[in-house]
């Protein structure tokens, strides 16, 4: 068990190193001079040269890489060229909205999906089954940004039921903060619920076909017990990994929604940095989002390990 966790930790470390390397090369090797971008069109060649020197772009690539990685390890993401302050605190201050949205949307989606899928698997082909199937097919295909615009038009602009955009920290001022969260979370939940429900339904139905259920029935277990004690736990297990795998889509959705709802999270930060060509922030925000994704996935893996004894043995 401990060995398995250690092995996972090693894999986690490898992936994180590769993530850092990938970002380094994406930003450095591809054409476009970062120093030129910082200096602007008006700069003289001498100024550009000075900036290049200051940014450490004059030394060979491998030296830049080593320096950059060393700084990364101690939490130094460089200095933002648009804010003129270190990147790490800027990113930290943008972390809360993104993580809040991710956790809230995931927890609420799971809370809705599980009973829904149970209903669907227990009574196939009734009205609920048909509704859920249509909803999931469309829910997966709806672009988040478009759905967000439609919902804003209907519920915020026309009915005024919720704020159009903005962010108030819900942990400090829940009465003002939560209404701001409703629309983005609903949009995220549409995609999440569709993905989860589709997987869980297939898992449940697949589990219902397993021979061990016949054994349970043969031993005299009631249909209710067969379902809740045998089929359901086994169907929920792989769903845990689905939640983990879907985190990427979720974080991507949050990034886009933050720009629409003007929420000061990592997504808005990243998008702003792209328009001001602030490479330090682009690197930092991308890495942090990737780290959130990888670490959350790691946690999901651990939960899976705890829940499923079979994985521990193999």
């Amino acid at each position, binding site marked *: 068990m401990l060995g398995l966790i250690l092995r996972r930790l090693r894999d986690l470390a*490898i*992936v*994180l190193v*590769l*993530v850092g*390397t*990938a*970002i380094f090369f*994406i*930003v450095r090797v*591809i*054409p*476009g001079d970062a120093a030129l971008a910082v200096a602007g069109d008006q700069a003289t060649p001498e100024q550009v040269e000075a900036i290049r020197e200051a940014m450490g772009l004059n030394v060979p690539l491998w030296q830049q890489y080593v320096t950059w990685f060393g700084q990364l390890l101690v939490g130094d993401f460089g200095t933002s060229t648009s804010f003129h302050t270190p990147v790490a605190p800027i990113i930290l201050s943008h972390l809360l909205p993104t993580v809040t949205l991710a956790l809230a949307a995931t927890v609420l989606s799971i809370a809705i999906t599980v009973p829904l899928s149970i209903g669907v698997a227990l009574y*196939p*082909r009734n009205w609920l089954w048909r509704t859920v199937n249509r909803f999931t*097919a*469309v829910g*997966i*295909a*709806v*672009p*988040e*940004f*478009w*759905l967000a*615009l*439609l919902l*804003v*038009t209907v519920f915020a*602009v*026309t009915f005024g039921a919720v704020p159009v955009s903005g962010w108030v920290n819900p942990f400090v001022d829940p009465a003002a903060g939560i209404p701001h969260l409703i629309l983005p979370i609903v949009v995220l939940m549409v995609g999440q619920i569709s993905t989860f429900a589709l997987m869980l339904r*297939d898992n449940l*139905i*697949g589990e*219902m*076909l397993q021979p061990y259920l016949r054994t349970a029935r043969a031993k005299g277990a009631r249909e209710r017990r067969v379902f809740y004690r045998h089929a359901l736990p086994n169907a929920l297990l792989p769903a845990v990994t689905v939640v983990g795998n879907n*985190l*990427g*889509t*979720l*974080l*991507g*959705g949050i*990034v*886009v929604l933050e*720009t629409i709802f003007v929420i000061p999270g990592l997504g808005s930060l*990243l*998008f702003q*940095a*792209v328009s001001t*060509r602030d490479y330090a922030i*682009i690197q930092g925000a*991308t890495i942090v*989002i*990737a780290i959130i*994704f*990888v670490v959350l996935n790691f946690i999901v893996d651990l939960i899976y390990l705890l829940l499923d004894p079979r994985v521990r043995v193999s």
Partner: protein
Amino acid sequence: MLAWLRRLWRRDREFVVWLAVLLLLLLVVVIGPSLLPSAYVQSPGERLQGPSGTHLLGTDGYGRDVLARVVEAGRTSLLIALVIAALATVLGSVIGLVSGFYAKSASVLMRAMDALMAFPGIVLSIALVAAIGTGALSEIVALSVVFTPYMARISRSRALHLAGRGYVLAARSAGVSGPRILLTHILPNALPTILVQSLLIFAAALLLDGTLSFLGMGVQPPTPTWGNMIAEARPYLSIAPTFVVAPGLAIVLAVVTLNAISAGLRSIVDPRARALASMFVMRRERRAPRRA
């Protein structure tokens, strides 16, 4: 061909219907632009009109016909997504099959894929586009990089599975070379899985193309894409609803169609998926009294 279609129809009607929808969609974007008014001519006098006889879906902020632009945008978006799906499929399946077949020596490749998959797709593509610059070509490059790992992962697990099969062992002991086994035994047997996955990537690429163009990082206006049309419609949400609704619905229709076709193909290819579908028939039979 006709007999084959009839058999398919009897087996899975929904699949045939979705195939027809896809054909129709392709037909519309291929011949539509030559039948409809120009997607580019601006008429400032007719800005933001509702649906009418001359403009079935109304007009946009520059007085251009929304229907014509949605169809023209479909051309751009579908073509870009198709190219991305094709590139990701070829690259991903080569990487996946090779690293699955030569499992020990090629795990380095899969590590690189893991690293790429550690980024949420949209974030990686924003970073890539920010580095390469905006435009159709860089979008294609960026999104191909984003989707390649997904194809690699699937085809790798398929190759791993196939490499352990008896006929591969038989071929090997008969002295067939590795690359030849890969081409004549592994690839053809992995192809159905790859095809199913490539359709899913096609759909996902459409969505991601929409998002990128919406953020202004894809194909630039005045060339319409579904995503940049929605971005252009943003100031006029409640004034001209058809302007924002039409391109979004187009994305939904295209993605639903591609996903449905992929699912239909999978149920043909994968016996387990077929078993899932027949499950309901079985359950109903169990409830009904048996006839002799």
